[in-house]
């Protein structure tokens, strides 16, 4: 905060305590991979399968590659980028535009953009090529 808060210490402190308490409950800061998974599977995968050229999978990229992808914030192949940013596809505007045909976008309509981006990132890192895969006998 840019302003001097000396005089408002007690009020702000009280608010901060409530805020921290709630945010820790909601894991708001870290990104919720389960929520991100819903969005990724039902919005990202759905559109890619139907319109944008076939299957996509979180295991296409390593954790570092995924983080880099969101750092660059370019949607589509990095050598032939589309006009959209990656973060556009978690924006309110985008969710609003598909909410009538996509139940997941409708359900997750109210989540703040930055939060949803963190959720999707958390899922992709969680399931990336170099993540811990489930135990299997194969």
């Amino acid at each position: 905060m840019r302003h001097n808060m000396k005089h408002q210490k007690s009020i702000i402190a009280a608010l901060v305590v409530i805020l921290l308490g709630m945010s820790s409950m909601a894991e708001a800061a870290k990104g919720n991979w389960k929520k991100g998974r819903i969005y990724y599977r039902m919005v990202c995968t759905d559109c890619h399968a139907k319109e944008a050229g076939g299957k996509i999978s979180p295991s296409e990229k390593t954790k570092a590659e995924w983080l880099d992808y969101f750092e660059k914030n370019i949607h589509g192949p990095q050598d032939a980028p589309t006009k959209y940013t990656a973060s556009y596809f978690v924006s309110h505007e985008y969710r609003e535009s598909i909410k009538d045909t996509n139940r997941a976008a409708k359900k997750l309509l109210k989540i703040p953009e930055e939060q949803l981006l963190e959720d999707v990132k958390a899922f992709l890192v969680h399931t990336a090529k170099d993540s811990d895969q489930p135990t299997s006998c194969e």
Partner: protein
Amino acid sequence: MNLLCVQCVIEVMSSLLRVILVFAAFTGTAYAISTADHTKFKELQENFKSGPEVTRACIKCHTEAAKQLHKTKHWTWEFLNPDNKQRLGKRNILNNFCITPQSNFAHCAACHIGYGWIDESFDFAAEENVDCLVCHDTTGSYRKAGDNGGLPRETVDLTYVAQNVSSTSRDTCGACHFYGGGGNGVKHGDMDDSLAVPERELDVHMDAVGEDFTCATCHKHVEHDIAGSRYAPEAAHSEDYHVHRKVFEEEDNAHCRACHGNRPHKKADKSRLNNHAKKIACQTCHVPRIARGGVATRMTWDWSTAGQLDETGEPLKKHVDGNLVYHGKRGSFTYAEDSEPEYIWFNGEVRYVLLNERVALNEDGYVEINSFAGSADDGKSRIWPVKVFRGVQPYDPIMGTMVVPHTTGLDEDAYWRGFDWEKAITAGMLSAGQPFSGKVDFIKTQMSWPINHMVAPAEDAVGCDECHIKNGRLKDIDGIYIPSRDASQKLDLAGWAIALLTLVGVVMHGLGRIVSYLWSKRSCPSE
């Protein structure tokens, strides 16, 4: 100045509001926020180095949890069938997938809710051997290693997982149950990782942005004992039904009618479907196909072709359409996806071929490792969908019994290292305490798996025409008359013949009248 900084307050208030919104969205979809925050528990402020250490911390507060679990099938891997007194459970039976965990516990106990079941010396009475995290993890980062009797992988941050525990989820149950038979979707046909985040079309109840049921929504538990059993399932609907189990009863099962009752079709034009429930399990119509989630399920497994290695000496592997169709350690496989199940009369009585029993072939030439009893007229059977899994696996042709192969492990006897069936089975049978002649042959086997999950929305249920038709889904179901399938052919032949003769008769008669009319006109033109 004692004035409040307006801008600060607005900023703080808006971020507070945002958090509240996030909070609201979370409670709406993912999971309920608990009244206990495990990150704050002083018992969990430790740098946990092993699974049992975590469990010791858990049971400081959850004092009865481990004792409760010790009584359950999930722990004992043992089940006494109350009807026929067969001693079943994973540790006793065999199947035609990986065959049996016996002599392979170090590997197979990756799906045991305990720590360290490597061999018979495992201490089933030790409370700290219960693995709380595998069922209660919410981070998705907990993994068992798969080669040490169910201990977690060394990469798992146990403290992080322990501080983020909550109720079970589709992910935690699925960590084992989605991967039954050795891989995703292999065994059941109605369970694979597509159910972790299912669309409404895949499972109308588990729909991740709809009802969002977890497994435990239907599989209610009392004292950690979870309802539902395929060793002694309930095939027919009785009159009573209950949503919440209140007492510990071994035979309690999860079932549709717990919520839907016995006359679930409420719309007037569908009410006659309620009458079908006397003969047909709900699943028969409402689980229209198996493996609908985009993951193929395995349909056959031929162990007799195992043993091929590639040029580097590693087990040969072949894939078709992304599915493993050959593996040098295991043999050949086929798959099905989005396919119709088979249908049988089933009354809930299941009988297993156990290790000490001589096998017999059914009329199709298969040993039925589990056989489902039932008929149209025993008064307690329903028509059920089943996935029938067929295989070829080793047996002892002299003793006439099924055998335990020691497949996994680092010793030379293990089939997956030595590729010698006789050695592997000698070791396996020794470990299981069963006699073995030393001879190995292969025999065709089959198992049935009742289909319960991946319940489609009503509009996607099996249509009337799919059974009420000749050669439809129920073509092999005997003992009942199905309109449209079973009309008497003799009656049809006679009936249509008489109708046709009548038609020919009246046409001839009419022609006769026309001819006689024309004739009379010619002979009596004056008229």
